């Protein structure tokens, strides 16, 4: 029953990324925000570099929007410091900051046409009329809304409004573009399409984006780096791959994608090799941190990293019975009940069309589970 051939597990990828050479564009140093007794943002540190598309990801009330509003200048930090391009922002009001924000409900001015909405920011800078109209035309071309100049926001669809909001924020060429749930108001199909458009546009204009989102898929597709937030703190910061493949925390493992979380106990920690026992057998991980023998922690195993097959008499891996099936077309999600009544989630690609009913796995089928031990994730909390 024990998968004996346990290979080495996770070691977080090094924190290097292609942007880290220069001084960070945005530096957040020990920033907290309290509303009365409630701490919305709790002592957060973060560096964001020129050209990044950075996502603040978390559930509602995790403090991500408050943090974004502090960057825009709508809230002042209770303590800590925010620097943009090395310049302290604490005394700088929103209208003087080198940031622009795309609001969640777009906040387009309903009494102005699309053209006027976009020109508004440029007018505040006192640009010449010809320059303004040139810039407006260019940005409208970028978001493909040239023909909608004279319309009012109410006469546009959700997707068009979203693009106007983006254009209005981008036209001022901010150092930092802040996006509050930019895609939340769109329906699913349009959202997927717009994700890629957003990335293309960011690529073209080269502006640094900070995106707030609760949608983990959106964060994974869009970002160069993600900070996962919970209760006002950063739980983990890293590239999408780091966050997904090497989460260091149960919350992260469960929030991004899904994971089977197993209780584990450290049986040995010798020369950076940690061995952990769980009810699915022994796992070993390369780990440099000091984990005492006998301490309890968790092992995560993603459903898609487990293969499932009909059990044969020769099977010697984990055996279980199918308790429930979720059929999604391209994949199926199986809930497999083990002998000890624990349930393990398994996702399988439906690579082939089943030839007949017997070919398909069904309820109470006896199945064999296996995985590559390097796929297991060591979760310290």
């Amino acid at each position, binding site marked *: 029953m024990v998968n004996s051939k346990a290979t080495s597990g996770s070691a977080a990828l090094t924190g290097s990324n292609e942007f880290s050479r220069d001084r960070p564009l945005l530096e957040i140093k020990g920033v907290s925000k309290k509303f009365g007794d409630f701490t919305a943002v709790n002592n957060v540190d973060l560096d964001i570099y020129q050209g990044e598309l950075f996502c603040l990801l978390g559930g509602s009330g995790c403090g991500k929007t408050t943090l974004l509003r502090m960057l*825009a*200048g*709508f809230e002042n930090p209770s303590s800590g410091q925010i620097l943009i391009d090395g310049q302290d922002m604490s005394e700088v*009001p*929103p*209208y*003087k*900051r080198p*940031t*622009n*924000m795309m*609001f*969640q*409900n777009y*906040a*387009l*001015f*309903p*009494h102005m046409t699309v053209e006027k909405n976009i020109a*508004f*920011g440029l007018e*505040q*800078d006192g640009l010449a009329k010809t320059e303004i109209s040139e810039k407006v035309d260019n940005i409208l071309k970028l978001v493909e809304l040239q023909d909608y100049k004279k*319309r*009012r926001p*109410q*006469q*546009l*669809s*959700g*997707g*068009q409004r979203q693009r106007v909001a983006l254009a*209005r*924020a981008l036209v*001022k060429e901010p150092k930092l573009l802040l996006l509050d749930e930019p895609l939340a108001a769109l329906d699913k199909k*349009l959202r997927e399409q717009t994700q890629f458009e957003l990335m293309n546009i960011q690529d073209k204009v080269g502006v640094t984006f900070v995106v707030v989102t609760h949608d983990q898929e959106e964060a994974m597709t869009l970002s160069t780096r993600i900070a996962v937030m919970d209760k006002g703190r950063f739980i983990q910061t890293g590239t999408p791959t780091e966050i997904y493949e090497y989460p260091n925390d149960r919350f992260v493992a469960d929030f991004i994608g899904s994971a089977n979380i197993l209780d584990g106990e450290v049986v040995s920690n010798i020369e950076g090799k940690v061995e952990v026992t769980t009810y699915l057998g022994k796992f070993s991980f390369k780990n440099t941190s000091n984990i005492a023998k006998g301490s309890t922690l968790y092992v995560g195993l993603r459903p898609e990293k487990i293969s499932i097959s009909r059990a044969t008499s020769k099977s010697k891996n984990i055996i279980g019975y199918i308790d429930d099936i979720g059929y999604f077309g391209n994949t199926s999600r199986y809930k497999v009940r083990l002998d000890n009544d624990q349930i393990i989630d398994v996702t399988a690609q439906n690579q082939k069309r089943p030839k007949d009913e017997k070919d398909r796995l069904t309820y109470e089928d006896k199945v064999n589970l296996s995985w590559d031990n390097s796929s297991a994730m060591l979760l310290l909390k």
Partner: protein
Amino acid sequence: MHNERSRFLTFMLYVGLAFLYIPMVLLVIYSFNYSKLVPVWGGWSTRWYKVLFESPEVWEAVSLSLQIAFINATFATLLGALAGLAMVRFGKFRGRTIFGGMLVAPLVMPEVITGLSLLIFFISLKELIGWPLERGFTTITIAHITFSLAYVAVIVQARLTGMGISLEEAAADLGAKPFKVMSAITLPRLAPGLLSGWLLAFCLSLDDLVIASFVTGPGSTTLPILIFSRIRLGLRPDINALATIIIIFVAILVAIAAFIMLRQQKRELIDQQMAARGDV
């Protein structure tokens, strides 16, 4: 079953409408009564309209009431809007709760009390600084502003809360200084609220009898005071004629408002259709 219920509802609708409008219809009919005694029908005639048009004190009262209403509405809107803005947009300032409570107090205060206290106020003011010398136009206007501004403040507060702050934040984010945010975003968005506040203040002033009776003086007779003082001596047919004219005037205003609203709805529908075609 369903059918019966709806027949019952239809019946109740007519009962309700009758309850509201039969008195007015009667009033209109009696205004065309030839007889000098209101309850006695003496045949159709327009003589009381002629009497009405030939009595100058009625037109003086109408003119006075309209002037007071206009000045009152303008000042009440200005002050009420400022109060509403302070309540909704200025965050937590010292004494905000007390200010909010005092702002709505005139709404729940019995008019008799408001009128009496204002009268005492004007009298003691005259003792202290010798102004206002006599009560009339000025005192009525001031009295009306004090209670009308509370209504305007409530409307403005509701409108500001409903508007949310994100448009103003967006403008600030795009580089607009606070004054520009106010003039380019807040005020245009607030305009419908200000207009309805102004109209409400105007109507409240035209309508007011109790407070005006307290703070008025000799020679300043507003329309409600005039009507009431004449009715006290018995029903009079020329007052019926005056009331009929007022009813027609109000009906025309309501019709215009309905027409504007209908046009607005149509435009919104067209906007929605345009928007729906956009998502491809």
